[in-house]
């Protein structure tokens, strides 16, 4: 088995946690009144978690920084 780098493990863990956040947010959104304040807050959380999930693959990139 190829040994995994600590940062890969971290990214894996981040991914798990963000997936949990997205999951519970979606669950709450299903029950929230559409157009209401709770729904708006949940959408903020949903969007932020999605942004973070998008960042994860870049986080693990092994390229030297572009100067």
């Amino acid at each position, binding site marked *: 088995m190829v040994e*995994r780098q*600590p*940062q890969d*493990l*971290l990214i*894996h*863990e*981040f991914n*798990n*946690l*963000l997936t*949990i*956040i997205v999951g*519970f*947010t979606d*669950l*709450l959104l299903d*029950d929230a009144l559409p157009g209401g*304040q*709770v729904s*708006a*807050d*949940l959408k*903020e*959380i949903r*969007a*932020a*978690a999605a*942004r*973070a999930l998008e*960042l994860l693959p*870049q*986080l*693990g*990139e*092994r*390229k*030297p*920084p572009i100067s």
Partner: protein
Amino acid sequence: MPLRVLHLEDDPRDAQLVYAVLSSDEIDCEISVVETRDGFLKGLNGPLDLILADDNLPQFDGLSAFALAGELRPDVPFVFLSGTIGEEAAVDRLKAGATDVVVKGRMDRLPFVARRALAEAREKMERRKAEEEVLRLNADLEQRVAERTAALVKSERRLQVARLEAERANRAKSQFLSRMSHDLRTPLNAILGFAQLLELDTLSEDGRESVGQIMRGGGHLLELINEVLDITRIEAGHLSLSLESVNTVEAVNHAVDLVRPLAAQRGIEIEVGQPPSPDLQIHADRSRFAQILLNLLSNAVKYNRQNGRVTVWFEPVPEARLRVKVTDTGAGIPAGKLALLFNPFERLGAEQSDVEGTGLGLALARRLAEAMGGSVGVVSQVDRGSTFWIELALGDGVAATVEAPRTAPAHNYHETNGVVLYVEDNLSNVRLMERVLMHRPGVRLVHAPKGEDGLRLARDEHPGLIFLDLHLPDMSGEEVLRQLWEDPQIRNIPVAVLSADATPGHMRRLLASGAVEYLTKPLNITRVMNLLDERLHRSEGL
């Protein structure tokens, strides 16, 4: 092998005599007799062990022959044979390098001279061989040195490649860390901020449970990020610590108070043993010591059995040191796994149990303790439980007592009125603040995306409170703070700074330069609302 002799002689009788003398002494020889320069030259080209030369010849002479031989065959012994030669002339020839001078009347010396010449020639040959061997060995040695040098150059190159590789890995690592701490924190702040707001709303029990899961997930993410950054700081030697005498019992009681609710959920009792003295001091960084205690205590609760027990002990150890021990009644850890506990990332990627844990906490605790000149260790018994301890030097000064956390005075939020300026370039943070202020309808929010706009709006709107982010696109938060301070019109407006990377030194500097509060991201919503109530209530009353 016969002795090969070149004999320069015009008188055949003399030549015969030489042969006879040598043979009679059982010297096996082959003599080639020449009498002219050409003949002599020819003879020099052949295989040769000894040259005998008459001094006086009609067409040639011994001295010229000697010069020629010296030039062409310096390796062959040269003996003058002369009928009449004075002592002086003989000495001259010997000085010039002749092997010997034999007077024809004393031919009986010839075998001796020949033998000696031969021995010398052999010796010379052996010396030459030895010299050649030395040269060969030298060449060999040089070759080996060259080979070794080449190998060294090669391994030097390999080292350089490895160094470059390590530098590249380091760059990748710091890139990873900076992205992690900056890029990832921004959405995380939004997640935690809005989740806190949802907690304030009245939701169903299921709803509250789901929000709790979101908060825990986000909190765990934040904890991971902070722990990784701390470990990296320690490894790079960049961790700043302020070591002082800390009241140990107070610090332990404070940490126990924080863990008690978690323990109560699982019916676990926490007991603090009797300290050797109530004002027992330890030499530590106050907040890092608290962090380690909290880690050990929360582990003792998390990995305990239902209705178990956690005990905290104080144990003085030699050389003026103290151990604070935390004992649990959990499942214990097999001996083979004890060392792994302090490896960072040990629990990451492993099958998750129902107990959360970052896997970095203990690794960080050990590194922090070491950075403070102490240590962290464990003893464990399977099925009985574990004892984790932190050991540090005893403090020598007077322990400063911890300030009691400020409790906000109770205000009626309807009395909280006025304008709040928020200087922040990140829109998701602004939306969060707008949402927070919905809980304070009397407050109007003014937003400035840059430092310059912020200063202008501060003069125009004269807000009752400014929230100032430290990372702005046009100038640093410190610079905004300085310019605010220089303008007498606006210098009295209270400023609360907000930042994701709060080090104690940074906080102290900012508070010293006039900030009333330092808020870390993710924002603690309750603290923000308390601050609003406190400041805007007061300003209205003025």
